[in-house]
């Protein structure tokens, strides 16, 4: 059943995007640029490997991974909010920091410069390709609900209302007694946790951490956030679209119809097209990346 296989593969590929893009929506809607998603994912992945390995439990890995993402989110938050540092600069640096720290502690904890030993994870030996194997992995279910949960938070809760206000017009939020900093810290932490879960999924699915295993997925999630115009349901669809393109490419690998590099480009090209406004301009939250005095 190639169609079902294709769907299952699409979902597997989409899960880390869905997690990270959910974080991307939260952070960008609050006015903090989501350049850090890649770093959160990598930090979360490594922390999950540490937690799972030393805690002898995949769930301990999940907890540790969330913590890893949150810690990096806090570094970003403190730099960009408390110290009003340029978000682009700090964002890039957090990604470099995540690469450096994971490599350093990979040597320190596991004595390797390429990968961790096998750690407890979800799913059996062969992390199957069918739906049955997928359904057995709780991270899949979490990934599926990540975006709806974020949409629900943004549009149904007081916190979400405040996030939307702070990202669009921080002075207005301040004038009604809302602490812009507190909302942004919360958004940084939440997006760190969500994107961290994206990394957790990778580690627990593959049962090990490998150097730079996130391989740009955080940037694809950022692309999905922009391509989906910061709207949760559209962002979710963008993740699925990008994942489907990859799944299709894997399915067609034998046929050599389109070189894999061209499939890789799709998310990035679509994002540029969206930004250039060829089909309805993508307009970012008004205070995105700006320093709030």
């Amino acid at each position, binding site marked *: 059943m190639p169609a079902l296989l294709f769907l299952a593969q699409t979902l597997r590929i989409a899960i880390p995007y869905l997690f990270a893009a959910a974080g991307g929506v939260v952070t960008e809607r609050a006015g903090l640029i989501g350049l850090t998603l890649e770093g959160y994912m990598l930090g979360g992945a490594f922390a999950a490997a540490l937690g799972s390995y030393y805690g002898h439990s995949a769930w301990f890995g999940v907890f540790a991974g969330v913590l890893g993402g949150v810690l990096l989110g806090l570094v970003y938050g403190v730099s960009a909010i408390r110290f009003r540092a340029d978000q682009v600069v700090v964002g890039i640096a957090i990604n470099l920091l995540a690469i450096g720290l994971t490599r350093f502690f990979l040597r320190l904890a596991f004595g390797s410069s390429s990968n961790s030993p096998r750690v407890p994870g979800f799913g059996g030996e062969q992390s199957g390709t069918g739906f049955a194997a997928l359904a057995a992995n709780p991270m899949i279910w979490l990934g599926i609900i990540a975006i709806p949960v974020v949409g629900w938070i943004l549009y*149904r809760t*007081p916190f979400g*209302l405040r996030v*939307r206000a702070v990202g*669009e*017009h921080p002075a*207005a939020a301040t004038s009604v*007694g*809302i602490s812009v900093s507190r909302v942004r810290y919360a958004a940084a932490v939440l997006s760190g946790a969500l994107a961290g879960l994206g990394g957790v999924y990778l580690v627990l699915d593959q049962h090990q951490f490998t150097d730079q295993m996130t391989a740009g997925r955080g940037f694809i999630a950022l692309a999905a956030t922009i391509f989906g115009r910061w709207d949760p349901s559209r962002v979710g669809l963008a993740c699925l679209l990008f994942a489907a393109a990859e799944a299709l490419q894997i399915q067609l690998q034998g046929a050599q119809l389109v070189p894999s590099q061209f499939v890789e480009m799709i998310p990035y090209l679509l994002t540029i097209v969206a930004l250039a406004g060829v089909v309805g301009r993508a307009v970012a939250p008004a205070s995105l990346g700006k320093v709030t005095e």
Partner: protein
Amino acid sequence: MTPTDTAAIRLTDIHKSFGPVLANRGASLEVARGEIHALVGENGAGKSTLMRMLSGMYTPDRGRMEVVDGSGVLRDVAGWSTADAIKAGVGMVHQHFMLVPTLTVEENLMLGAELTKDGPLRLLDRARAVEQVDALSRRTGLRVNASQLVSQLSVGEAQRVEILKVLYRGARILILDEPTAVLSPPEVAELWQVLRQMRERGETIVLITHKLDEVMSISDTVTVMRHGRTISRLRTAETTPQEIAREMVGRDVVLAGGLRRDAVTGEEVWAVASSRDAAPAGGTSLGQTNFPLPALELRGVSVASARHAEAVRDVGFSVSPGEILGIAGVEGNGQTELIEAIAGLRQLRSGTILLDHHDITNAPVRARGDAGLSHIPEDRHTRGLILDYTIADNLILGQQHRFARGGFFNSLDGERIAENARRQITAFDIRPDDPILPARALSGGNQQKIVVAREMGRDFRVLLAAQPTRGVDVGAIEFIHAQLLAARAAGKAILLVSADLSEILALSDRIAVMYGGRFVVVMPRSQASEEVLGPYMTGAESAA
């Protein structure tokens, strides 16, 4: 605190500085319960700062702030937060709207005071919010559509939402910062009605303004501020606009021709006094036919504003050499867009612009400059100067191509730039006179002199002077006025835009009034006075 105390607000000896700027230095204010209190003063007198401290946005450096609480007792509230102020029933409607455009009216109203459903999740209760907004809207007469996006509202509607937002939070003390600046006359009338209703319900209102007609028509009591201090507190019924104007300016003001109340604003009165010496001698007003061929001519010019509305509608006029055409009007009636269109900074929707009979409608900024157009922009901080550039570099901005050596490297000629700087600094008395200081380091008046020196210290045919004396000291005002008159005498054509009616009256040969993007009237100076122009400026008369 006496038992018979009827004060709702009592601020005593408040001090507040921002860096080197002393915004408040001993300001006081006492507002009685259930009155409409006008807080007046010139721009920069410290009114907004004082009220922002009262609403918790700023913290005073020192001083005593007391506000009445629910049980009628005055409590010390110095240094409270916006959240504290809101809780205590103090709400402020800011000059610049504090509304989130991407949220609905109902979301904006409950932001920070969200209604939630029962249950552990504490979800937003939109239905109840809409209900409450509708109820409040009916009760106050401020009509709004609760589920509309704020970005789709008109200015007047947005103002209503702002007031509702404050009332929604249960404000008993309402502070309004220049609420009429953006409103049309019917909208202003509606606002006054709402405020009077609130007063009848026993609520206290502080109205920041510099328009004396507003003070006279709506307030019970007036507090006048000047240079960060409180000067006097007057009963509106027992005072006159002349008395308030004198208190605002700090000296006797000779109100030429007996100013009518509705045309007088604080700034205008002030400039009458200061620009008197620079005004042309009596009898200089010239009819529009006395001039030779126009140097600047506009035909049927329409310009779009940022919101895609028509900011300038079908405006046509001409300015001749040796003539100053003054454009009067309340700010925001299209003056900015008109000037920017002539300068080449904004696209025309339709129409033609001629400079010495050459069509420059689509010419780039630089070509217009080379053709003899000079431009003193209204905002020197964002357009007129590059604050981190030196005085010398700012003195060539816009003419940098004239200071380049050409050729492949096209390097700038440092010596000529320095020579130009020395000459202009001396001619226009810019202080300090060190050409390598960044423009940021100069006072407002000297910064403006850099702009004036650059634009007038070169060969030009037509000058666009937008708010040329805004925010500068008296000495600089007189200097700049003298420069404008000298240029007029030298046969330059000058288009002067000023929010300051007396500046317009003091300098212009002909005066046009702009309202709603149109020239509603053009008349020779000899026929113009504040009484004549006032009704046109408020749109009350639209003869044309």
